[in-house]
């Protein structure tokens, strides 16, 4: 899976699933010994700048609380940023990202989690639209 897409999906994956998979990877002796923490998980903010449509000007809408972490496994870097203040899960997500880069067997397990996450998001989006579309006002236009 494309690394960018993986980061997007690990950012949205279920917290328990992410931690459980990371826990399983950590029990591999090789992963545990080759793990380097590059940046410990840190809670902080991302300033959201938006471009408004009238003058095409940027302005600051406000800040979003995120947690960020970066690790390496066997020299392969892994990075994660997730909304909220959960340092453990963010560290786990960074670990999964690094493992996916480091080892294709582990990578396919991470991909599975991502695919599953994508399916869940699609279902939610679909369900949301099914509910919403009934609130659209329909007009009968005379042609």
């Amino acid at each position, binding site marked *: 899976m494309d*690394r*960018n897409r993986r*980061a*997007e999906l690990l*950012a*949205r994956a279920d917290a328990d699933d992410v931690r459980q998979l990371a826990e399983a990877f950590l029990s591999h002796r090789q992963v545990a010994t080759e793990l380097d923490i590059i940046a410990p998980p*840190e*809670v*902080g*903010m*991302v*300033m*959201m*700048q*938006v*471009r*408004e*449509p*009238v*003058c*095409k*000007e*940027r*302005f*600051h*809408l*406000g*800040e*979003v*609380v*995120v947690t*960020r972490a*970066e690790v390496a496994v066997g020299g392969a*870097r892994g*990075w994660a*940023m*997730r*909304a*909220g*203040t959960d340092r453990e899960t963010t560290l786990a997500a960074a670990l999964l990202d690094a493992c996916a880069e480091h080892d294709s067997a582990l990578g396919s397990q991470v991909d599975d989690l991502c695919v599953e996450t994508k*399916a869940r998001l*699609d*279902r939610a989006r*679909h*369900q*949301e*639209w*099914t*509910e*919403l*579309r*009934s*609130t*659209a*006002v329909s*007009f009968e*236009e005379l042609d």
Partner: protein
Amino acid sequence: MGYAAARGGLKAIEAAERLVARERILGESSWLESRQMIEKLRLAVDRVMGEGGLWDEDLAASALRQAEGDSIEAAHLLRSYRSTLPRLAYTTPIDVDDMDVLRRIVPAFRNPPGPQLLGRTTDYTGRLLQTADEDTLRTAAEKMAAFLDEQVTPEVEVGHVVSGAEPTDDERRPRRLLELLRDLDAVVDRRRTDDPEPFDITRHPARPPATRSARLATMARAETGALVNVWYRNILGPDGYLHEITLGEVRHGRLPVKVVHPITGDEISVTEVRVTEVEAIEDLDGIEEDRGRFDVGYGLCFGHNEKKAIAMANLDIACERDKGRSFLEQSILLTTDGLDASGFLEHLKLPHYVTFRSMMERKAAVRRHKETT
């Protein structure tokens, strides 16, 4: 002695804090869960995030509980928390056209391009207080939920999505009315190409004359009631800088939060926030203005808060037209922050006996002067 008894002291303060904390636990009801507030007091949580200038539903709910439901106090808790956090990154400039709408209303046209999507709203519901007992209300709500689930679930199969119900881009990301007005050459073109750096109100005080980005950022985290009041004051109050506008767009939807991936260098979306967006169409009638066209004001804030976004869009265009002639900009920048106004108001509760003694002394001096002349 009276004087000693008037002393506050640490013990009294701590005892007062314990009283508040105890009430969060005590009473007949169970612990108020954050999840409950996020789901069932959604607008209150959204308002706190907007006025706090910080998006995190769990923290906002926690703040609301800690503040016993006082939204300004809760926004204050969020903001003082944010003072302790590092700013890890800026998003890439988020294009507001990337919003997935959850609600979209176009008052300016009956049948605009894209849907008139009512979404989750009580705008058209009679304001009738539900006076039945709670069990009855709960049963009715459960029936309603079951009915809705029945309508929705048959189309969704686990693990795969029925294709026919997929929304088109025109439905989820409808083209904004402003674009239509541009096609019709009915709106003045103020699009800039120089892309100025946005003003950061969290690091520099915004003072008149300010840039538009400073005004928009100020209003995005202004107190809802204050912004509505500045607007209404200008309709019915003594100031009168603006007239009523027509709303082009009222939207509630989700915007992606995009940052640059540090390893690939590419833009990725790490989460979404919900925002309310408004376009306000202004009828230009000034002697120096392009009276053959409209202009447009813009409002955008965190969460679902239509009152705030509408007031913001109105005030944006009003300020643009005012061009610093009146106090409008100063009012917006200096008087709409909930923490500023409430903090100063409430500080009047603090002891003021030194200043009052000084005032008493001057009153006596004026009286003495009157008696001797």
